[in-house]
């Protein structure tokens, strides 16, 4: 009897322990724009799907491309394993520079498969609210001024890929640039089964 109770307990609460709710986006409705300049309501558009999101700025030469490439590798693995209902989001925390056009070019030059992947930007208050809730820090650091007067900023930022469940709750954080692809693929599968 005690054994049966334990099995039921593990069945009911085991996955929640493995993926505790870190934050909840379910009651939020942020108006953002994607790489095609289309209005996207975040996180509503992805509800019912597992979401993997990374936080980037397109002028980042090293870490953000690495984190984005890891999302690409995860996307490919999930596709190979015929795992559906997973969305990918790359959310820019540099909306002043990262226009929809800049995001589109960033994705295009990397030949990314955008069939289930949105690059998102928006107005600064909305972006700031999202990253604050996601516990992501992005602080402007060095600036560079080009000959034509164009000024860009570098950022000290959180290096993160985040796992969000079908109810728009953040369930796990990974280090974006050094993410373990196998671990994330396994977690996506576990969370889908739950």
């Amino acid at each position: 009897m005690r054994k049966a109770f334990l099995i039921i307990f593990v069945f009911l609460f085991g996955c929640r322990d493995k993926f505790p709710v870190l934050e909840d986006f379910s009651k939020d409705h942020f108006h953002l724009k994607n790489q095609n300049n289309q209005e996207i309501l975040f996180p509503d558009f992805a509800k019912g799907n597992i979401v993997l999101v990374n936080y980037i700025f397109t002028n980042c030469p090293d870490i953000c491309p690495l984190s984005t490439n890891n999302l690409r590798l995860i996307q490919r693995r999930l596709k190979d394993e015929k795992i559906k209902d997973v969305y990918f989001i790359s959310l820019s925390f540099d909306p002043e520079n990262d226009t929809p056009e800049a995001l589109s070019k960033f994705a295009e030059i990397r030949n990314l498969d955008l069939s289930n992947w949105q690059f998102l930007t928006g107005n600064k208050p909305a972006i700031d609210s999202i990253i604050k809730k996601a516990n992501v820090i992005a602080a402007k650091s060095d600036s560079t001024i080009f000959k034509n007067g164009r000024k860009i900023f570098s950022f000290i930022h959180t290096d993160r890929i985040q796992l969000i469940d079908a109810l728009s709750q953040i369930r796990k954080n990974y280090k974006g640039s050094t993410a373990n692809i196998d671990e994330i693929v396994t977690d996506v599968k576990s969370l889908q089964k739950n």
Partner: protein
Amino acid sequence: MRKHICLKWIFLLSIIALIDAGSKAQAQSNTVPKKQITINNAWIRPSVKDGNTAIYFTISNTGDKPDTLIDAQSNRAEIVEVHESYQMPNDRIGMRQVKSIVINPKSKIEFKPGGYHVMVLGVYKDYKIGDEFNFVLVFKRAGKLKLQAAVKDLN
């Protein structure tokens, strides 16, 4: 007597010539032939025109003297600098310029994602996977090394 003086001069000039040759040889041994610094597996991430990207490679010093990387240059972008990404608490990442890097004798230094890289700002055209990017590394002893990086992403 005259013959004796002449022989003395010949002897003196020979000594001077030997000393000069010796000092030239010494000077040559202080310069590192370029082949003692080799660069392998240079690659660069894709970038759109006016965008930023990073070059990665491995520097090997097979010589018996240290050398120092002091600059990176390219006529394919507006600004080229040596940088490193560094870890901070709570999974935060920062980036800073590095003025010089010493490569010790018989050692290698890897420029890799998340660490040392050559930062390239404002490339003059799109660089897609499969393209090549020309750049130069400048060493204190080995001088300028002209290089090519293949545009690719990690698999």
